[in-house]
Protein backbone atom coordinates (compact mmCIF):
# COMPACT_ATOMS: atom_id res chain seq x y z
CA UNK A 1 0.00 0.00 0.00
CA UNK A 2 2.78 2.38 1.04
CA UNK A 3 4.76 1.49 -2.05
CA UNK A 4 1.73 2.19 -4.25
CA UNK A 5 1.31 5.72 -2.88
CA UNK A 6 5.07 6.37 -3.02
CA UNK A 7 5.05 5.35 -6.68
CA UNK A 8 2.01 7.49 -7.41
CA UNK A 9 3.77 10.46 -5.80
CA UNK A 10 6.94 9.79 -7.76
CA UNK A 11 5.37 9.23 -11.18
CA UNK A 12 2.11 11.21 -11.26
CA UNK A 13 3.75 14.17 -12.98
CA UNK A 14 5.15 11.92 -15.66
CA UNK A 15 1.73 10.27 -16.03
CA UNK A 16 0.02 13.63 -16.54
CA UNK A 17 2.72 14.92 -18.89
CA UNK A 18 2.72 11.71 -20.90
CA UNK A 19 -1.08 11.67 -21.04
CA UNK A 20 -1.12 15.27 -22.25
CA UNK A 21 1.58 14.49 -24.80
CA UNK A 22 -0.41 11.48 -25.99
CA UNK A 23 -3.53 13.60 -26.47
CA UNK A 24 -1.51 16.19 -28.34
CA UNK A 25 0.05 13.54 -30.57
CA UNK A 26 -3.40 12.13 -31.26
CA UNK A 27 -4.71 15.38 -32.72
CA UNK A 28 -1.41 16.62 -34.17
CA UNK A 29 -2.35 16.03 -37.80
CA UNK A 30 -6.08 16.30 -37.46
CA UNK A 31 -7.82 19.36 -38.91
CA UNK A 32 -10.64 19.33 -36.38
CA UNK A 33 -8.21 18.56 -33.58
CA UNK A 34 -9.84 18.01 -30.17
CA UNK A 35 -13.29 18.66 -31.63
CA UNK A 36 -13.29 14.99 -32.61
CA UNK A 37 -13.56 14.11 -28.94
CA UNK A 38 -16.97 15.78 -28.95
CA UNK A 39 -17.94 15.02 -32.55
CA UNK A 40 -17.46 11.30 -32.17
CA UNK A 41 -20.08 10.75 -29.41
CA UNK A 42 -22.21 13.55 -30.88
CA UNK A 43 -22.54 11.79 -34.23
CA UNK A 44 -23.29 8.47 -32.53
CA UNK A 45 -25.86 10.25 -30.40
CA UNK A 46 -27.70 11.36 -33.55
CA UNK A 47 -27.64 7.81 -34.91
CA UNK A 48 -29.06 6.39 -31.69
CA UNK A 49 -31.64 9.17 -31.48
CA UNK A 50 -32.81 8.27 -34.98
CA UNK A 51 -32.97 4.54 -34.23
CA UNK A 52 -34.53 4.76 -30.81
CA UNK A 53 -36.90 7.69 -31.09
CA UNK A 54 -37.84 7.60 -34.77
CA UNK A 55 -37.52 3.98 -35.90
CA UNK A 56 -38.58 2.25 -32.67
CA UNK A 57 -40.82 5.08 -31.48
CA UNK A 58 -39.53 5.16 -27.88
CA UNK A 59 -40.27 8.23 -25.84
CA UNK A 60 -37.50 9.18 -23.45
CA UNK A 61 -37.33 12.45 -21.56
CA UNK A 62 -34.28 14.56 -22.50
CA UNK A 63 -33.20 11.80 -24.86
CA UNK A 64 -30.25 13.68 -26.35
CA UNK A 65 -28.72 14.32 -22.92
CA UNK A 66 -29.73 10.84 -21.80
CA UNK A 67 -27.83 9.13 -24.61
CA UNK A 68 -24.88 11.54 -24.53
CA UNK A 69 -24.23 10.79 -20.84
CA UNK A 70 -24.42 7.07 -21.56
CA UNK A 71 -22.13 7.23 -24.59
CA UNK A 72 -19.45 9.28 -22.86
CA UNK A 73 -19.32 7.11 -19.77
CA UNK A 74 -19.37 3.99 -21.91
CA UNK A 75 -16.56 5.25 -24.16
CA UNK A 76 -14.36 5.93 -21.16
CA UNK A 77 -15.11 2.52 -19.65
CA UNK A 78 -14.73 0.51 -22.86
CA UNK A 79 -11.78 2.31 -24.45
CA UNK A 80 -9.74 2.41 -21.24
CA UNK A 81 -10.17 -1.30 -20.59
CA UNK A 82 -9.64 -2.53 -24.16
CA UNK A 83 -6.56 -0.32 -24.68
CA UNK A 84 -5.06 -1.36 -21.37
CA UNK A 85 -5.12 -5.07 -22.31
CA UNK A 86 -2.03 -4.43 -24.46
CA UNK A 87 -0.63 -1.44 -22.61
CA UNK A 88 2.55 -3.18 -21.42
CA UNK A 89 3.34 -4.71 -24.81
CA UNK A 90 2.57 -1.45 -26.60
CA UNK A 91 5.07 0.32 -24.35
CA UNK A 92 7.80 -2.29 -24.70
CA UNK A 93 10.29 0.40 -25.76
CA UNK A 94 9.88 1.95 -22.30
CA UNK A 95 9.50 -1.05 -20.01
CA UNK A 96 12.59 -2.79 -21.38
CA UNK A 97 14.76 0.27 -20.77
CA UNK A 98 13.66 1.86 -17.51
CA UNK A 99 11.75 0.77 -14.45
CA UNK A 100 8.28 2.20 -14.28
CA UNK A 101 5.47 0.70 -12.19
CA UNK A 102 3.25 -0.68 -14.91
CA UNK A 103 0.02 0.65 -13.40
CA UNK A 104 1.34 4.10 -14.30
CA UNK A 105 0.91 3.11 -17.95
CA UNK A 106 -2.68 2.16 -17.12
CA UNK A 107 -3.23 5.54 -15.48
CA UNK A 108 -1.81 7.36 -18.52
CA UNK A 109 -4.39 5.70 -20.78
CA UNK A 110 -7.15 6.44 -18.27
CA UNK A 111 -6.03 10.06 -18.10
CA UNK A 112 -6.31 10.35 -21.88
CA UNK A 113 -9.80 8.89 -22.07
CA UNK A 114 -10.85 10.66 -18.87
CA UNK A 115 -9.82 14.02 -20.34
CA UNK A 116 -11.77 13.30 -23.50
CA UNK A 117 -14.79 12.39 -21.41
CA UNK A 118 -14.45 15.61 -19.40
CA UNK A 119 -14.42 17.70 -22.60
CA UNK A 120 -17.47 15.86 -23.93
CA UNK A 121 -19.27 16.31 -20.61
CA UNK A 122 -18.96 20.05 -21.14
CA UNK A 123 -21.48 19.54 -23.92
CA UNK A 124 -23.76 17.66 -21.52
CA UNK A 125 -23.89 20.87 -19.49
CA UNK A 126 -24.80 22.89 -22.59
CA UNK A 127 -27.53 20.39 -23.50
CA UNK A 128 -28.93 20.50 -19.98
CA UNK A 129 -29.28 24.27 -20.30
CA UNK A 130 -30.91 23.99 -23.72
CA UNK A 131 -33.36 21.34 -22.47
CA UNK A 132 -33.98 23.46 -19.34
CA UNK A 133 -33.25 20.50 -17.13
CA UNK A 134 -34.08 21.21 -13.49
CA UNK A 135 -30.84 21.10 -11.54
CA UNK A 136 -31.05 19.95 -7.92
CA UNK A 137 -28.55 19.26 -5.16
CA UNK A 138 -28.53 15.65 -6.34
CA UNK A 139 -26.10 16.72 -9.02
CA UNK A 140 -23.44 16.37 -6.32
CA UNK A 141 -23.80 12.60 -6.53
CA UNK A 142 -21.86 12.66 -9.80
CA UNK A 143 -18.68 12.90 -7.71
CA UNK A 144 -18.99 9.50 -5.96
CA UNK A 145 -20.42 8.04 -9.17
CA UNK A 146 -17.36 9.10 -11.20
CA UNK A 147 -15.02 8.09 -8.39
CA UNK A 148 -16.54 4.60 -8.47
CA UNK A 149 -16.26 4.53 -12.26
CA UNK A 150 -12.55 5.43 -12.08
CA UNK A 151 -11.90 2.82 -9.40
CA UNK A 152 -13.64 0.07 -11.35
CA UNK A 153 -11.92 0.98 -14.61
CA UNK A 154 -8.53 1.18 -12.87
CA UNK A 155 -9.00 -2.18 -11.15
CA UNK A 156 -10.26 -4.01 -14.24
CA UNK A 157 -7.60 -2.34 -16.42
CA UNK A 158 -4.75 -3.39 -14.11
CA UNK A 159 -6.00 -6.97 -14.09
CA UNK A 160 -6.39 -7.17 -17.88
CA UNK A 161 -3.06 -5.38 -18.37
CA UNK A 162 -1.40 -8.16 -16.35
CA UNK A 163 -3.06 -11.04 -18.20
CA UNK A 164 -2.75 -9.22 -21.54
CA UNK A 165 1.02 -9.66 -21.38
CA UNK A 166 0.70 -13.43 -21.37
CA UNK A 167 -2.47 -14.05 -23.36
CA UNK A 168 -2.13 -12.85 -26.94
CA UNK A 169 -5.76 -12.68 -27.96
CA UNK A 170 -7.17 -11.24 -24.75
CA UNK A 171 -7.75 -7.92 -26.53
CA UNK A 172 -10.06 -9.65 -29.04
CA UNK A 173 -11.93 -11.32 -26.19
CA UNK A 174 -12.22 -7.97 -24.40
CA UNK A 175 -13.46 -6.24 -27.57
CA UNK A 176 -16.16 -8.88 -28.17
CA UNK A 177 -17.13 -8.93 -24.50
CA UNK A 178 -17.45 -5.15 -24.50
CA UNK A 179 -19.68 -5.22 -27.58
CA UNK A 180 -22.02 -7.61 -25.79
CA UNK A 181 -21.94 -5.51 -22.64
CA UNK A 182 -22.73 -2.38 -24.66
CA UNK A 183 -26.06 -3.76 -25.83
CA UNK A 184 -27.17 -4.87 -22.38
CA UNK A 185 -26.04 -1.71 -20.54
CA UNK A 186 -28.80 0.65 -21.60
CA UNK A 187 -26.41 3.13 -23.15
CA UNK A 188 -28.90 4.25 -25.81
CA UNK A 189 -32.19 2.94 -24.43
CA UNK A 190 -33.98 2.89 -21.10
CA UNK A 191 -33.89 -0.47 -19.35
CA UNK A 192 -36.80 0.65 -17.19
CA UNK A 193 -38.83 3.33 -19.04
CA UNK A 194 -39.64 6.40 -16.94
CA UNK A 195 -42.57 7.51 -19.06
CA UNK A 196 -45.66 5.37 -19.48
CA UNK A 197 -45.03 2.76 -22.07
CA UNK A 198 -44.51 -0.88 -22.61
CA UNK A 199 -41.24 -2.20 -21.30
CA UNK A 200 -39.96 -5.11 -23.30
CA UNK A 201 -37.70 -6.18 -20.45
CA UNK A 202 -39.39 -7.97 -17.50
CA UNK A 203 -39.01 -6.21 -14.14
CA UNK A 204 -36.70 -8.71 -12.45
CA UNK A 205 -34.42 -8.93 -15.46
CA UNK A 206 -34.36 -5.13 -15.72
CA UNK A 207 -33.34 -4.93 -12.06
CA UNK A 208 -30.53 -7.42 -12.60
CA UNK A 209 -29.38 -5.57 -15.72
CA UNK A 210 -29.17 -2.29 -13.84
CA UNK A 211 -27.95 -3.31 -10.40
CA UNK A 212 -25.49 -6.08 -11.24
CA UNK A 213 -23.83 -4.59 -14.26
CA UNK A 214 -21.54 -1.88 -12.90
CA UNK A 215 -21.41 0.32 -16.01
CA UNK A 216 -25.17 0.09 -16.50
CA UNK A 217 -25.69 0.96 -12.83
CA UNK A 218 -23.32 3.95 -12.93
CA UNK A 219 -24.78 5.33 -16.16
CA UNK A 220 -28.30 5.03 -14.75
CA UNK A 221 -27.30 6.72 -11.49
CA UNK A 222 -25.49 9.51 -13.31
CA UNK A 223 -28.61 10.23 -15.38
CA UNK A 224 -30.69 10.25 -12.19
CA UNK A 225 -28.32 12.73 -10.57
CA UNK A 226 -27.92 15.02 -13.57
CA UNK A 227 -31.20 15.11 -15.43
CA UNK A 228 -33.99 13.32 -13.54
CA UNK A 229 -33.27 14.45 -9.97
CA UNK A 230 -34.18 10.91 -8.97
CA UNK A 231 -33.15 8.79 -6.03
CA UNK A 232 -29.63 7.46 -5.92
CA UNK A 233 -29.20 3.86 -4.82
CA UNK A 234 -26.54 4.51 -2.21
CA UNK A 235 -26.33 0.89 -1.05
CA UNK A 236 -25.43 -0.35 -4.51
CA UNK A 237 -23.15 2.63 -5.09
CA UNK A 238 -21.20 1.72 -1.95
CA UNK A 239 -21.17 -1.90 -3.05
CA UNK A 240 -19.66 -1.07 -6.45
CA UNK A 241 -17.21 1.34 -4.83
CA UNK A 242 -16.05 -1.50 -2.56
CA UNK A 243 -15.77 -3.79 -5.59
CA UNK A 244 -13.71 -1.07 -7.29
CA UNK A 245 -11.33 -0.88 -4.32
CA UNK A 246 -11.03 -4.65 -4.23
CA UNK A 247 -10.35 -4.96 -7.97
CA UNK A 248 -7.79 -2.13 -7.79
CA UNK A 249 -6.02 -3.85 -4.90
CA UNK A 250 -5.96 -7.16 -6.80
CA UNK A 251 -4.76 -5.46 -9.99
CA UNK A 252 -1.95 -3.52 -8.29
CA UNK A 253 -0.93 -6.63 -6.35
CA UNK A 254 -0.74 -8.70 -9.56
CA UNK A 255 1.31 -6.01 -11.29
CA UNK A 256 3.77 -5.60 -8.41
CA UNK A 257 4.17 -9.36 -8.07
CA UNK A 258 4.72 -10.20 -11.70
CA UNK A 259 5.94 -7.04 -13.45
CA UNK A 260 9.55 -8.19 -13.43
CA UNK A 261 8.48 -11.10 -15.62
CA UNK A 262 6.80 -8.89 -18.23
CA UNK A 263 10.10 -7.83 -19.77
CA UNK A 264 11.02 -11.48 -20.25
CA UNK A 265 7.82 -12.12 -22.22
CA UNK A 266 7.62 -9.02 -24.39
Amino acid at each position, binding site marked *: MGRFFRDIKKYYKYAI*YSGRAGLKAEVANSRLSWLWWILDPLLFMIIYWFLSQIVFGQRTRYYMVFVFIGLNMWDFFQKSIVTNVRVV*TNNSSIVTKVYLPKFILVLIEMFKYGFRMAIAFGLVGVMMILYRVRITWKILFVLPIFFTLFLLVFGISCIVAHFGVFIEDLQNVAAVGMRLLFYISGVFYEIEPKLKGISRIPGTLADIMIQWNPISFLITQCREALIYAGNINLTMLCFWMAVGFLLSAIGVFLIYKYEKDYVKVI
Partner: protein
Amino acid sequence: MDDRKNAIEVEDVHLSYQCLQAFPLRKSIFSLKKSKVEKYEALRGISFGVKKGEIVGVIGRNGSGKSTLLKAIAGIFAPDQGTITLATPSVSLLSIGVGFQRKLTGRENVMLSGMLLGFSEQQILEKMDEIIEFAEIGSFIDRPVKTYSSGMFSKLAFSITAVLETDIMLIDEILSVGDTKFKKKSYEKMKELIFDKNRTVMIVSHNPDTVRQLCTSVLWIHEGKVRMQGDVETVLEAYEGEA
Protein backbone atom coordinates in the same frame (compact mmCIF):
# COMPACT_ATOMS: atom_id res chain seq x y z
CA MET B 1 43.09 0.19 2.26
CA ASP B 2 40.28 1.80 0.27
CA ASP B 3 37.79 3.12 2.84
CA ARG B 4 35.34 4.59 0.36
CA LYS B 5 31.75 3.40 0.76
CA ASN B 6 30.25 0.99 -1.71
CA ALA B 7 27.92 2.73 -4.15
CA ILE B 8 26.65 -0.61 -5.43
CA GLU B 9 26.41 -3.70 -3.26
CA VAL B 10 25.26 -6.89 -4.92
CA GLU B 11 24.79 -9.90 -2.67
CA ASP B 12 24.04 -13.45 -3.77
CA VAL B 13 21.78 -12.35 -6.62
CA HIS B 14 19.96 -15.07 -8.51
CA LEU B 15 17.80 -14.17 -11.48
CA SER B 16 15.97 -16.65 -13.68
CA TYR B 17 14.07 -16.17 -16.87
CA GLN B 18 11.14 -18.45 -17.11
CA CYS B 19 11.05 -19.07 -20.84
CA LEU B 20 7.61 -17.51 -20.95
CA GLN B 21 5.89 -16.68 -24.16
CA ALA B 22 2.62 -14.98 -24.80
CA PHE B 23 0.17 -17.70 -25.84
CA PRO B 24 -3.24 -17.71 -27.50
CA LEU B 25 -6.31 -18.22 -25.31
CA ARG B 26 -7.27 -21.38 -27.24
CA LYS B 27 -4.08 -23.02 -26.05
CA SER B 28 -4.74 -22.19 -22.42
CA ILE B 29 -8.31 -23.50 -22.60
CA PHE B 30 -7.64 -26.73 -24.47
CA SER B 31 -4.35 -27.72 -22.97
CA LEU B 32 -5.43 -29.64 -19.93
CA LYS B 33 -1.92 -30.65 -19.02
CA LYS B 34 -0.07 -27.78 -17.52
CA SER B 35 2.83 -27.03 -19.79
CA LYS B 36 6.26 -27.27 -18.23
CA VAL B 37 7.90 -23.86 -17.97
CA GLU B 38 11.54 -23.92 -18.93
CA LYS B 39 13.80 -21.92 -16.64
CA TYR B 40 17.03 -20.25 -17.56
CA GLU B 41 19.14 -18.98 -14.70
CA ALA B 42 20.87 -15.87 -16.03
CA LEU B 43 22.50 -14.88 -12.72
CA ARG B 44 23.56 -17.61 -10.31
CA GLY B 45 24.50 -16.11 -6.99
CA ILE B 46 26.47 -13.04 -7.96
CA SER B 47 28.10 -10.98 -5.21
CA PHE B 48 30.35 -7.96 -5.57
CA GLY B 49 30.70 -4.37 -4.48
CA VAL B 50 31.55 -1.20 -6.39
CA LYS B 51 33.13 1.75 -4.58
CA LYS B 52 31.86 5.27 -5.11
CA GLY B 53 33.68 6.87 -8.03
CA GLU B 54 34.88 3.54 -9.41
CA ILE B 55 34.62 2.72 -13.13
CA VAL B 56 33.99 -0.97 -13.54
CA GLY B 57 34.21 -2.73 -16.87
CA VAL B 58 31.94 -5.76 -17.11
CA ILE B 59 33.22 -8.40 -19.48
CA GLY B 60 32.16 -11.88 -20.45
CA ARG B 61 30.93 -13.91 -23.37
CA ASN B 62 27.55 -13.35 -25.03
CA GLY B 63 24.81 -14.73 -22.81
CA SER B 64 26.94 -14.69 -19.67
CA GLY B 65 24.48 -12.38 -17.87
CA LYS B 66 26.16 -8.95 -18.22
CA SER B 67 23.16 -7.05 -19.57
CA THR B 68 20.81 -8.83 -17.17
CA LEU B 69 23.04 -7.74 -14.30
CA LEU B 70 22.90 -4.10 -15.42
CA LYS B 71 19.14 -4.25 -15.84
CA ALA B 72 18.80 -5.76 -12.36
CA ILE B 73 20.90 -2.94 -10.89
CA ALA B 74 18.78 -0.40 -12.80
CA GLY B 75 15.65 -2.00 -11.28
CA ILE B 76 14.15 -3.21 -14.56
CA PHE B 77 14.35 -6.81 -13.35
CA ALA B 78 13.99 -7.70 -9.69
CA PRO B 79 16.23 -10.52 -8.45
CA ASP B 80 14.58 -13.82 -7.49
CA GLN B 81 16.96 -14.10 -4.57
CA GLY B 82 19.62 -11.88 -3.03
CA THR B 83 19.82 -8.12 -2.68
CA ILE B 84 21.04 -5.14 -4.65
CA THR B 85 21.72 -2.08 -2.50
CA LEU B 86 22.48 1.28 -4.04
CA ALA B 87 23.88 4.19 -2.05
CA THR B 88 21.76 6.59 -4.10
CA PRO B 89 18.46 6.31 -5.96
CA SER B 90 19.99 8.35 -8.78
CA VAL B 91 20.77 5.53 -11.20
CA SER B 92 20.26 5.13 -14.93
CA LEU B 93 20.87 2.50 -17.54
CA LEU B 94 22.08 4.50 -20.49
CA SER B 95 19.57 4.07 -23.26
CA ILE B 96 18.77 6.54 -25.95
CA GLY B 97 15.38 7.75 -27.10
CA VAL B 98 13.44 6.15 -24.27
CA GLY B 99 9.80 7.22 -24.29
CA PHE B 100 10.11 9.26 -27.48
CA GLN B 101 6.91 10.03 -29.38
CA ARG B 102 7.54 10.84 -33.01
CA LYS B 103 4.58 13.21 -33.42
CA LEU B 104 5.79 15.50 -30.63
CA THR B 105 8.48 18.16 -30.87
CA GLY B 106 12.06 17.61 -29.77
CA ARG B 107 11.51 19.87 -26.76
CA GLU B 108 8.48 17.91 -25.63
CA ASN B 109 10.38 14.68 -26.07
CA VAL B 110 13.23 16.00 -23.92
CA MET B 111 10.69 16.58 -21.13
CA LEU B 112 9.04 13.21 -21.62
CA SER B 113 12.27 11.24 -21.78
CA GLY B 114 13.83 13.15 -18.88
CA MET B 115 10.84 12.59 -16.61
CA LEU B 116 10.87 8.91 -17.47
CA LEU B 117 14.51 8.78 -16.45
CA GLY B 118 13.48 10.09 -13.04
CA PHE B 119 14.22 13.83 -13.34
CA SER B 120 11.82 16.52 -12.20
CA GLU B 121 10.28 19.05 -14.59
CA GLN B 122 12.42 21.76 -13.00
CA GLN B 123 15.68 19.82 -13.38
CA ILE B 124 14.96 19.18 -17.06
CA LEU B 125 14.06 22.81 -17.74
CA GLU B 126 17.33 23.91 -16.14
CA LYS B 127 19.27 21.62 -18.49
CA MET B 128 17.15 22.23 -21.60
CA ASP B 129 19.45 24.81 -23.24
CA GLU B 130 22.50 22.62 -22.63
CA ILE B 131 20.75 19.63 -24.22
CA ILE B 132 19.69 21.65 -27.27
CA GLU B 133 23.17 23.10 -27.67
CA PHE B 134 24.88 19.73 -27.32
CA ALA B 135 22.48 18.08 -29.79
CA GLU B 136 23.31 20.71 -32.45
CA ILE B 137 19.82 20.60 -33.92
CA GLY B 138 19.02 24.33 -33.61
CA SER B 139 15.46 25.35 -34.47
CA PHE B 140 14.52 21.72 -35.17
CA ILE B 141 14.02 21.35 -31.43
CA ASP B 142 10.53 22.82 -31.86
CA ARG B 143 9.62 20.61 -34.79
CA PRO B 144 8.09 17.14 -34.56
CA VAL B 145 10.69 14.42 -34.13
CA LYS B 146 9.23 12.56 -37.13
CA THR B 147 10.74 15.29 -39.34
CA TYR B 148 14.27 14.56 -38.03
CA SER B 149 16.89 12.60 -39.91
CA SER B 150 18.09 9.47 -38.11
CA GLY B 151 21.31 11.31 -37.23
CA MET B 152 19.44 14.22 -35.65
CA PHE B 153 17.25 11.79 -33.77
CA SER B 154 20.22 9.99 -32.23
CA LYS B 155 22.01 13.26 -31.45
CA LEU B 156 19.03 14.56 -29.48
CA ALA B 157 18.40 11.22 -27.79
CA PHE B 158 22.06 10.93 -26.80
CA SER B 159 22.20 14.51 -25.52
CA ILE B 160 19.33 13.88 -23.10
CA THR B 161 21.07 10.97 -21.44
CA ALA B 162 24.46 12.69 -21.55
CA VAL B 163 23.35 15.98 -20.04
CA LEU B 164 20.86 14.64 -17.50
CA GLU B 165 23.46 13.03 -15.28
CA THR B 166 22.87 10.44 -12.57
CA ASP B 167 25.17 9.41 -9.70
CA ILE B 168 25.34 5.81 -10.86
CA MET B 169 25.59 5.27 -14.59
CA LEU B 170 25.19 1.88 -16.24
CA ILE B 171 26.36 1.67 -19.82
CA ASP B 172 25.60 -1.24 -22.12
CA GLU B 173 27.89 -0.67 -25.10
CA ILE B 174 26.49 2.75 -26.08
CA LEU B 175 29.38 5.15 -26.06
CA SER B 176 28.97 7.26 -29.18
CA VAL B 177 26.38 8.00 -31.87
CA GLY B 178 25.81 10.12 -34.99
CA ASP B 179 28.19 11.20 -37.77
CA THR B 180 31.99 11.09 -37.42
CA LYS B 181 32.22 14.55 -35.86
CA PHE B 182 29.39 13.94 -33.39
CA LYS B 183 30.72 10.44 -32.67
CA LYS B 184 33.95 12.01 -31.48
CA LYS B 185 32.10 14.66 -29.50
CA SER B 186 29.75 12.16 -27.89
CA TYR B 187 32.62 9.83 -27.01
CA GLU B 188 34.44 12.76 -25.36
CA LYS B 189 31.28 13.65 -23.46
CA MET B 190 30.93 10.07 -22.30
CA LYS B 191 34.54 10.09 -21.13
CA GLU B 192 33.89 13.33 -19.25
CA LEU B 193 30.87 11.77 -17.55
CA ILE B 194 32.66 8.53 -16.79
CA PHE B 195 35.75 10.21 -15.33
CA ASP B 196 33.74 12.41 -12.95
CA LYS B 197 35.06 11.40 -9.52
CA ASN B 198 31.65 11.60 -7.91
CA ARG B 199 30.08 9.22 -10.37
CA THR B 200 30.08 5.44 -10.16
CA VAL B 201 30.05 3.75 -13.54
CA MET B 202 29.59 0.21 -14.83
CA ILE B 203 30.35 -0.38 -18.50
CA VAL B 204 29.52 -3.56 -20.38
CA SER B 205 31.95 -3.90 -23.26
CA HIS B 206 33.34 -6.54 -25.55
CA ASN B 207 36.20 -4.30 -26.53
CA PRO B 208 39.32 -4.78 -24.31
CA ASP B 209 40.78 -1.47 -25.54
CA THR B 210 37.72 0.44 -24.37
CA VAL B 211 37.94 -1.27 -20.99
CA ARG B 212 41.67 -0.48 -20.71
CA GLN B 213 41.07 3.18 -21.63
CA LEU B 214 38.08 3.85 -19.40
CA CYS B 215 37.95 1.47 -16.46
CA THR B 216 39.64 1.34 -13.09
CA SER B 217 38.68 -2.29 -12.42
CA VAL B 218 37.05 -5.20 -14.21
CA LEU B 219 34.33 -7.68 -13.34
CA TRP B 220 34.36 -10.89 -15.39
CA ILE B 221 31.00 -12.65 -15.53
CA HIS B 222 30.91 -16.22 -16.72
CA GLU B 223 27.75 -18.32 -16.96
CA GLY B 224 25.94 -16.10 -14.48
CA LYS B 225 28.68 -16.10 -11.86
CA VAL B 226 31.57 -13.82 -11.00
CA ARG B 227 34.62 -15.49 -12.48
CA MET B 228 37.07 -12.80 -11.45
CA GLN B 229 37.14 -9.23 -10.16
CA GLY B 230 40.19 -7.06 -9.87
CA ASP B 231 42.47 -4.62 -11.60
CA VAL B 232 42.13 -4.12 -15.33
CA GLU B 233 45.28 -5.84 -16.60
CA THR B 234 45.08 -8.94 -14.39
CA VAL B 235 41.47 -9.70 -15.26
CA LEU B 236 41.78 -8.86 -18.95
CA GLU B 237 44.88 -11.04 -19.28
CA ALA B 238 43.08 -13.97 -17.69
CA TYR B 239 40.00 -13.36 -19.86
CA GLU B 240 41.97 -13.03 -23.09
CA GLY B 241 44.03 -16.07 -22.17
CA GLU B 242 40.91 -18.17 -21.89
CA ALA B 243 39.30 -16.79 -25.02
